[in-house]
């Protein structure tokens, strides 16, 4: 303090009080409040609504006694009647059945399809392995509603594949784009990379020495494969199957576009209940069911991977003996290419359509034009801007929250926060949207229909991925660097901002790009929650598809894909995460 400034006792008391505040503790409470308000509270509200059948305004109860009274009355009338009707058959029950059947079927098909692939990548000298590996990640880049659009171009009534099929002399359609079959196909061929890479890892872990022992004892190569290699990889395979189940079960983009009228799926049903009929009771029951199912399978997957021994993953750099038999590697190469044909064709179809003047019946469009891109850039500049702004907003929130959460979890062992921040993993997008709409529908926090709530929803939904990325770098920062900053006079918060934060930048940057990318791709929350004056690119594609403006939709879709590929490759470079 300089000599010239005399402070009144009151001022200095205030200063002392300000100094005594532990700013870090405040941040911790802010983070807790954030998760409580935008995650726990909406889920609790939805849970209560599923019993009462009418909106329950929990926040309102805190500020207004009248609302409190209404709520208590509604809660006292709570009953299991809605759940009973769910189990008693009817549309909800069949929706659940269909969704479960879809998810189980897709998981099984994906696993069967991926076993040879995973073996090829992990254990053979398959030609063009790196190129194929890169191609195998492309399906993940494409939002499912765009793949669905591609399927319509291929397998629609006038789709080129069906045209080709008929010109070969067959009757009817090869596959109907608007059917359960095509939904299954899209999910299988676009979700398989989710399972492939964990399975490759599982095949790599499996103990080579056991296999050598088996061969040594006279077993043939194929019997070693069947009796030793495969069983050892089983935990990894099951875990991958459970992951696919969750992804398929909560996928919104495919069914919302392709589900035919007769096919009831739980995500579509929930969407219709809330956006079509404002049926609080129905929507919330479906939400609870979705969360419950996702939670069970998520927990199962965690349970299985927990018992998996990853110990050998890091410690065994010695070269695995790869299968280099020409017959095996070449047939696996052909197989991999066949697997990649369908997703590539779907993306290719969207691309062709984005350049087409008109494309009715026929193998190829009548002519080619850049008009749709011109239209997209002149008429939909706003949508592009909105996407960037919304994604940017979500990114800022998730960077701040994820950095703080990783700090608290790594340095202070705050396991509660770790748990809370992983909850979004089990909440399907559509479920989170419904919970938000219900909770923030009325005062005091009337946020439904605002861009802010949409941004928060994006941020919450992608938070676990962001945290995974920042947590990794946080663990690599030794605590003494931070102690040094404190020792040199910085408060803990200042130490985090000036020292820990900058050192976490690589993780933050990689995580942010991934958040940005997934927000741009996001369908379910966007369709449910985006206010019309804030419509992002994905919503525009979606609406255009429904309206039948397929050409501009395709052009915009290509734009999204291009953006995603560019950003994702930057992120990959940053994290240098190469599987090979």
């Amino acid at each position, binding site marked *: 303090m300089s000599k010239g400034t005399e402070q009144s006792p009151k001022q200095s008391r205030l200063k002392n009080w300000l100094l005594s505040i532990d700013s870090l503790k405040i941040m911790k409470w802010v983070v807790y409040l954030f998760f409580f308000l935008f995650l726990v509270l909406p889920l609790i509200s939805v849970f209560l609504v599923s019993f009462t059948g009418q909106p329950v305004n929990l926040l309102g109860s805190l500020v207004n006694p009248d609302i409190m009274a209404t709520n208590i009355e509604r809660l006292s009338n709570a009953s299991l009647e809605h759940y009973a009707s769910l189990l008693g058959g009817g549309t909800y029950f069949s929706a659940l059945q269909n969704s479960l059947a879809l998810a189980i079927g897709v998981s099984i098909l994906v696993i069967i399809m991926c076993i040879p692939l995973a073996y090829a990548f992990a254990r053979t000298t398959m030609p063009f392995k790196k190129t194929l590996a890169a191609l195998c990640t492309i399906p993940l880049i494409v939002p499912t509603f765009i793949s669905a659009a591609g399927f319509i171009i291929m397998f629609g009534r006038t789709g080129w594949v069906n045209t080709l099929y008929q010109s070969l002399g067959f009757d009817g359609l090869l596959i109907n784009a608007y059917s359960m079959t095509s939904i299954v196909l899209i999910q299988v061929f676009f979700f398989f990379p989710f399972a492939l890479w964990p399975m490759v890892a599982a095949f790599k872990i499996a103990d080579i020495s056991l296999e050598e022992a088996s061969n040594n004892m006279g077993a043939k190569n194929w019997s070693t494969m069947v009796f030793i290699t495969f069983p050892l990889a089983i935990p990894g395979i099951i875990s991958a199957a459970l992951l696919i189940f969750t992804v398929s079960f909560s996928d919104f983009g495919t069914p919302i576009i392709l589900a035919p009228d007769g096919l009831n799926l739980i995500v579509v049903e929930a969407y219709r209940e809330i956006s079509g009929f404002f049926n609080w009771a129905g929507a919330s029951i479906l939400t609870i069911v979705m969360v419950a199912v996702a939670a069970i399978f998520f927990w199962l997957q965690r349970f299985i991977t927990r018992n998996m021994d990853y110990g050998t993953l890091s410690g065994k750099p010695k070269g695995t003996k790869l299968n280099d038999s020409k017959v095996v590697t070449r047939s696996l190469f052909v197989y991999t290419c066949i697997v990649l044909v369908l997703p590539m064709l779907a993306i290719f179809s969207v691309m062709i359509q984005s350049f087409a003047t008109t494309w009715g019946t026929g193998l190829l469009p009548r002519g080619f034009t850049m008009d749709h891109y011109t239209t997209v850039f002149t008429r939909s500049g706003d949508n592009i801007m909105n996407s960037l702004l919304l994604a940017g907003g979500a990114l800022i929130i998730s960077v701040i929250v994820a950095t703080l959460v990783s700090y608290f979890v790594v340095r202070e062992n705050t396991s509660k926060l770790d748990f809370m921040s992983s909850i979004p993993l089990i909440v399907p997008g559509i479920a989170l949207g419904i919970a938000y709409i219900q909770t923030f529908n009325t005062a005091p926090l009337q946020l439904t229909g605002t861009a802010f709530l949409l941004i928060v929803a994006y941020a919450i939904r992608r938070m676990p991925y962001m945290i995974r990325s920042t947590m990794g770098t946080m663990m690599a920062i030794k605590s003494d660097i931070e*102690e040094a*900053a404190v*020792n040199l006079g910085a408060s803990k918060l200042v130490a985090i901002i000036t*020292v820990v934060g900058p050192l976490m930048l690589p993780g933050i940057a990689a995580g942010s790009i991934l958040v940005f990318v997934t927000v741009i791709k996001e369908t379910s929350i966007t369709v449910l929650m985006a206010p019309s004056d804030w419509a992002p690119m994905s919503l525009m594609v979606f609406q255009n598809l429904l309206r039948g403006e397929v050409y501009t939709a395709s052009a915009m879709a290509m734009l999204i894909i291009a953006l995603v590929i560019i950003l994702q490759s930057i992120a990959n470079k940053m994290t240098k995460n190469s599987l090979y």
Partner: protein
Amino acid sequence: MGSVKVKNLVKKYDKATALKGVNLDIKEGEFYALLGPSGCGKTTTMRCIAGFENPTSGEVLIGEKVVNSVPANRRNCGMVFQSYALFPHYNVFENVAYSLTIRDLYNGSFGQRAKTFARLIHKKLGKPSKEIQEKVHDALKYVELDHLADRGVNELSGGQQQRVALARALVMEPSVLLMDEPLSNLDKKLRNTMRTTIRKIQQDLKITTIFVTHDQEEAMSMADHVAVMRDGEIVQMATPTELYSNPKDPFVADFVGSSNIYQGKVVDRKENGDSIVKVNDNTILESTTHTDKEDVEVLVRPEGIEILKNGRMEDHNVLEATVKISTYLGPTIRYDIELAGMEVMVEEEFQPNTTLFKEGDVIKVFLPAERVLLI
């Protein structure tokens, strides 16, 4: 201003007790070493002084003031970490300037503080004040690194990083300098140079320094006072010479230099108080130590034993022994000998005309009474 006192410091963790009542009284300007094996509590003691650990009970006083409730960032202890803990995203200058910049961040008008904050985020966002520049360059000159101010810290050698860490701690003019095994990451030669550098700086600045180490040579060669710790307790506090020549305890004796230690019994006392002690039930030795105890530990340093050559005679403590192993160490020779059924180490200075004994040679050794310590 710079004295440090620690009173009855106890630190308990969930399962273990790290400190069981540690007392220290370190005077201003003193160089104090905490010496002990790993896990003895020396680092915990230092972390309690720095404020990184909250003691379970007991008091820490810096400059006669109890600082238990003062947070670590306001204790004004400069600390040099074992890993140096330099900030990898800052260059040498920014590392050293950090404490001064932070000081600016907490003082001044809002605008000034915003500027300071910007500078902390990136060096291009603002220039440090003249005062800071001067202070940092002075500190860097002090450790002879002024020419490297713009280097990234990862481009420096281990010894240079060490000196940056030292400059960074000194620039804040701390009331106490804390050093946690600062030399353990350096090679042996560099370690010896740094010992001299650190000691010289400490003497120049007359700064109270606490130095944690497990290396007795380091502690003995640098410190004014040494506290030897074991299992969360201080075993002995003394000057280095006192510690070596008069260890209180076999643990200290063994930790501070190598030594021959045997069980013994005092069987008689001379008129002047000197003791006659029986070792290993078969050997009688005289010792100048005065003691009331009967059961004692008998300690003889290897260099305290003389090998009698060229017909030299002594009137007491002369024994016959057989050479088992002879090791040439350069300036000295070490013999492992068998003496009345005991294994004994003897160290002798090597001179060009020294006779070297071989394995199996029978020699006469002399243990001067003043070198035979009873503890």
